[in-house]
């Protein structure tokens, strides 16, 4: 599979504050990749760099093999961009906005895809977007991207401001569209439950670095939560393969990619006074918290 997005040695600072250093990742063709991270880890920074609205301190990003800093209009035609908060031209109504965008995508614009989605919204054709709910605005923004019919979709925090119903609608519509049309999607969201239904691969970022990049199935099957009983006031000193070990009321909790047998051996080798070791597979949200910690 060829890479649609390639970022090499990406480094960025805001003033003296380092956001990340030497970040490398690729997004293969036809995959839906979710970028996950806590607030301030650089998700929106990455989206801004990818969409050409931020010049990185150093490093290079290529989309369809072309450097994004010199993105030609023909390349932008192949990329659908959803801004954080589903920002669109609020002074227009749904008919006007469709007419406006259609002029920029001759031969590629799928008017019917937009209106199919708009028909599901209970809004008058002349109602300005400014007077719509967040959920309705999200559908307008999504409808415009579907009509644009791009090869790559870049979506910044698509779940922002949406209630559960509209989040589900957005995810289901996007997933079906991306899968059936073999589109590549790069997205971020602060609601990780939504990602579980949608993404094929994930990148989990911590402050300044990428913790993991792997298919979601590998993560969900290989990452486990371990709990065991330990003496009161025990302070665990464990290697890096055990993520964020913490003791609460005689229960040691940690997360790891190690299989149960290896974990048991490791705890013994580290002379942890444990009993009743248990393990369980976790949801994506639990895996995210397990990897990045609660604080």
């Amino acid at each position, binding site marked *: 599979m060829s890479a649609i997005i390639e970022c090499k040695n990406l480094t960025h600072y805001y003033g003296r504050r380092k956001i990340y250093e030497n970040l490398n990742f690729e997004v293969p063709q036809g995959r839906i990749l979710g970028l996950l991270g806590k607030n301030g880890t650089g998700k929106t920074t990455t989206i801004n760099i990818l969409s050409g609205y931020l*010049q990185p301190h150093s490093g290079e990003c290529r989309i369809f093999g072309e450097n994004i800093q010199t993105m030609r209009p023909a390349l932008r035609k192949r990329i659908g961009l959803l*801004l954080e908060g589903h920002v*669109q031209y609020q002074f227009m109504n749904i008919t*006007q906005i469709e007419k406006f965008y259609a002029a920029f995508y001759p031969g590629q614009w799928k008017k019917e895809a937009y209106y199919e989605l708009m028909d599901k919204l209970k809004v008058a054709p002349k109602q300005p977007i400014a007077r719509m709910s967040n959920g309705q605005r999200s559908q307008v923004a999504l409808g415009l991207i579907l009509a644009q019919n791009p090869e790559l979709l870049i979506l910044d925090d698509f779940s922002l401001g949406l209630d559960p119903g509209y989040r589900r609608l957005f995810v289901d519509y996007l997933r079906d569209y991306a899968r059936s049309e073999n589109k590549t999607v790069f997205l971020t969201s602060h609601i990780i439950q939504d990602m579980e239904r949608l993404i094929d691969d994930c990148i989990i970022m911590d402050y300044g670095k990428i913790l993991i990049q792997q298919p979601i199935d590998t993560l969900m099957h290989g990452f486990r939560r371990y709990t065991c009983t330990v003496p009161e006031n025990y302070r665990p000193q464990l290697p890096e393969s055990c993520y964020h070990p913490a003791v609460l009321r005689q229960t040691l909790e940690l997360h790891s990619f190690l299989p149960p047998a290896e974990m048991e051996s490791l705890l013994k080798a580290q002379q942890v006074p444990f009993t009743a070791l248990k393990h369980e597979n976790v949801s994506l949200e639990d895996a995210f918290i397990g990897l990045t910690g609660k604080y």
Partner: protein
Amino acid sequence: MIRAVFYKEWIKTRWFLLLATLFLMGITGYALLRVSRAMALHGVEHLWVVMVQKDAIFVDLLTYIPLMIGIGLAAVQFFPEMQNKRLKLALHLPYSRQKMTLLMPACGLSALVCCFATSYLMMGIYLPRYFAHELVRRVLLSAAPWFLAGFAGYLLVAWICLEPTWKRRVLNLIIALLVLRVYFLAPGAEAYNGFLPWLTVYTLLLACLSLISMARFKAGKQD
């Protein structure tokens, strides 16, 4: 694509433009009404004498109106573009970013030309009925720097609005005030006559300032 950009800008600014044009026509009409009243009271000959000997042009009411309209139009047109960084939408369209940066102010300038033309038309139709060609020319040329200030105000506020950082916006605002001062240095009739072509070029060059703001926006400059 050019039509689409004009379409978007029109939807955004049409109500303001309508109100601004009506307001400008109202003020121009009021100024001309005062001329008409003065003629009724003192006779047209008296006005001719005052115009020639005392440099009166009778439309001073208009002095700052085009500037206010220019500033207002730029705010109505560009403020929504910077809310939630909506400008990214326009710059992501498959169209040259430089052309887009120049096309948006071009839409506003075209609208201002139409708006200001109503005032000039009213003066150009009414005044020749009572005044000699030279005196009409004097009024229209004396008012020209005010209308150029309207265009300049528009371009300068566009520059300030599109600037992505607040610190720089304040600096731009101070520079803009100094630049605008040039249009109101000499209040006398036809004081700018020899300078008008240069003032026009100076005004048009201000359009390039938007390119600086846009380049800074694209580079992701932040406070």
